[in-house]
């Protein structure tokens, strides 16, 4: 839609623009094409070399796997009907993880903003929890919650929650005090300050936290799956490693990369739709 508008605008102005400007626009397009071309080239060359080295026995394909074997593995996983099962489970855990992490983090940030006393009391605890490598808590969650998806989601929450709380709270506190005063001059309550100014003004911050949490959730989910799971991409990686099926490991890593990138792009798109007049 936007693209069409831009093209239309360009078409309209093209009758007016000077040849110099046309040349400039052509250069810009050319530059874009060159960048995209080089990007694809790097991908093709690296996969190509990987394949060639493996075929020529320069590297041991038993250890490094190779692109054709990765494709074969994907196909056989598909044939067995488990490909989308594993991808689906991991993606579901990740989505639940970052959505829950962002929502819960925002709610806790609101509570801490509401009560300055509570926020001051909890400050040292937040600092300790923030610095603690949350992965250390993995075994604790497994014992408490049991080996299963619930423990994995709690793991992702542990990783993303504190960061979200701090980030969103920081966003709240950086909002111009005068905007809060504005609501107060109309006799607004603290709750109205929250709903009319704080939350809408912090919306970009919250979306940003969501973006960060996507990455953190993947870490949490994969670590969680390493520790407990019976399905998912993390499980495939660990299982493949244990039985020395490097094809399976490489395949899972590549799928993971694609899935993570797609999910991140999805959130970026969501941001574009939700955060208007930016």
């Amino acid at each position, binding site marked *: 839609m936007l693209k069409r508008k831009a093209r239309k605008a360009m078409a309209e102005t093209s009758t007016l623009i000077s040849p110099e400007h046309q040349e400039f626009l052509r250069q810009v397009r050319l530059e874009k094409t060159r960048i995209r071309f080089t990007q694809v080239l790097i991908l093709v060359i690296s996969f190509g070399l990987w394949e060639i080295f493996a075929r020529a026995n320069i590297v041991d394909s038993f250890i490094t796997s190779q692109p054709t074997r990765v494709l074969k593995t994907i196909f056989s996983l598909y044939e067995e009907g488990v490909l989308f099962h594993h991808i689906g489970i991991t993606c579901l855990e990740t989505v639940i993880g970052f959505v829950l992490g962002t929502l819960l983090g925002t709610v806790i940030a609101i509570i801490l903003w509401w009560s300055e006393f509570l926020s001051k009391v909890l400050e040292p605890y937040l600092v300790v929890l923030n610095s603690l490598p949350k992965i250390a808590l993995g075994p604790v969650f497994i014992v408490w919650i049991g080996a299963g998806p619930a423990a994995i989601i709690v793991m992702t929450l542990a990783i993303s929650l504190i960061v979200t709380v701090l980030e969103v709270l920081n966003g709240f506190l950086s909002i111009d005090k005068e*905007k809060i005063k504005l609501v107060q001059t109309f*006799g607004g309550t603290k709750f109205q300050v929250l709903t009319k100014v704080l939350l*809408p*003004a912090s919306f970009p911050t919250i979306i940003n936290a969501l973006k960060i949490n996507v990455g953190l959730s993947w870490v949490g989910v994969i670590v969680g799956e390493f520790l407990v799971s019976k399905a998912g991409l993390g499980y495939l990686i660990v299982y493949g490693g244990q039985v020395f099926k490097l094809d399976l490991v490489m395949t899972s890593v590549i799928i993971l990369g694609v899935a993570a990138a797609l999910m991140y792009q999805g959130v970026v798109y969501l941001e574009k739709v939700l955060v208007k*007049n930016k």
Partner: protein
Amino acid sequence: MVEVHNVSMKYHSLNGEITALQNINFSVQAGEFVSIVGPSGCGKSTLLSIISGLLAPTGGTVLLGGEKVAGTSSKIGYMLQKDHLLDWRTIFENVMLGPEIRKTVTAEVKERALHLLQTYGLYEFRHKYPAQLSGGMRQRVALIRTLMTSPEILLLDEAFSALDYQTRLAVNDDIYAIIKRENKTAILVTHDIAESISMADRVIVLSKRPGTVKQIYSLSLSIAPRTPLTSREAPEFRYYFQEIWKELDVHVEA
């Protein structure tokens, strides 16, 4: 309309006690435009916050139409230093903020908002966002937002200081005309002597901290029609400027 009796304000901090205002006395008549000037840090803005009921004074009382101020009142409209339009709301939604907060949104109120936007040349922009408006227009929107709750008294807290000089002169005229047209009482706090004279019927000069009322000037400018811009051409303008300047007793410390 507004009576300020013996108002004092003390702030407490770990380093001790600061007296921001001491025994402030003055009153403002209905329909009058009063400026308050003073050196920075003399408690001008604090005084406005006290009149609006946002802050409780540590001593003295403020009466609005004979009633003691305790908490914010719908009789008061407050204009802040910047326009503080909310970026995520359209112009119309921004103007409706006051009624929304006071929970007085009705079809009539919406009608009134549109009418005010129409009167002050912003009707076409009602669906636009603040970022699409010029500084002067934004200030006008901010004033309409303040007018929406039908206040009797407008408090302008350095309301033009965020604008560049040319825009500021134009907005002075603009806002002055609207205030006179809507027949509002106004108190303007500023550190700009020229601005204070150009807009007001009376100028109250505050002293350095602790702020006290040093002098009150009733202005009579022999110029008609009077607007902030024409006021600056009045023969008396210079005289008042000199007087207030002397009264402010500004020293630049090296």
